């Protein structure tokens, strides 16, 4: 048998059928988290973490793909190609 992962391609219908309940439950978890924040005292509207969450949610809803990688990059510190000079390692 093949070691090519593309030898077995699930159809979109099958993936949706298999993953619907788990995706539904994750959306509910997020929804309830936002409700919990709303019920809590004080405000985090301007907190950096809150901004990241709301930008992350936008990535889920936009028209582009590669969503997991884009969410990861959103949540990442910037890379500076000249870091070795900055650290005096060169």
């Amino acid at each position, binding site marked *: 048998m*093949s070691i090519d992962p593309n030898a077995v391609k699930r159809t979109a219908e099958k993936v949706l059928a298999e993953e619907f309940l788990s995706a539904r439950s994750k959306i509910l978890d997020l929804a309830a988290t936002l409700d919990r924040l709303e019920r809590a005292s004080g405000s985090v509207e301007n907190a950096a973490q809150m901004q990241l969450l709301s930008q992350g949610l936008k990535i889920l809803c936009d028209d582009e793909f590669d969503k997991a990688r884009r969410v*990861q990059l959103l949540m990442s510190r910037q890379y500076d190609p000249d870091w070795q000079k900055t650290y005096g390692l060169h």
Partner: protein
Amino acid sequence: MDYIDPHIHMVSRTTDDYETLARMGCVAMSEPAFWAGFDRGSVESFRDYFRQLTEFEPKRAAQFGIRHFTWLCINAKEAENVSLSREVIAMIPMFLSAKNVLGIGEIGLNKNTKNESTIFLEHLELAVQYDQQILIHTPHLEDKFQGTRMILDMLMGDSRINRSRVLVDHVEEHTIEAVLENGFWAGMTLYPVTKCTPQRAADMIEKYGPERLMANSAGDWGPSKPTAIPDLIMELKRRGHSRELIRRVVYDNPRQFFSQSKNFDLAALPG
């Protein structure tokens, strides 16, 4: 299905865990030296730790028919202490001839600091000098992307490094491509909350194929699941993937990678 866990911290696990892993098909494992959850006080603590990794753990594993291999270094977190790191690095050569040592690791970055980078480069020097394979820890969460790029810069800046003898661990969706396309091996860590789920690991296998790709549990003293590789095997089976593909990732690849180390006896793990 027989499998190999190429990154697991058994010093933090119980003997019952060894038994469970054996029952689930684990036939071999490799344990990189890492942070104990607190900073050690002196080089002597590392000496004892290296004895535990090279003398005690292989015996504990053998009771359950599991081959135990290890990697030695001072981890990225304690590497912030440069003078202690240099004492540890100076001590490592005396352990390199122990029968279960595969190389230097898990070296890497934690908060991507100058001191961590300095000690990373000194570990590379040690590995080159003693012709050792290298196992690399990439940072967590928001530090991972930056830290992985810095690590690749240091590895690729040294022409003496043979990329096919280097495993870069804890890759995720935003770091896997750079690691694989530059000729290194990549390890996906199945770890709750901070790293990757079996489902996302299966996605990366589907996207990049099995070449130079492995999975590990990184089971340790924190919230982690030493039996995470069987979870990945289940997920790949559920998606209808072939036994050959699954075996390539969880058995053949770690075996092939380890076999580049002088202390690895290929015959000990049948092909």
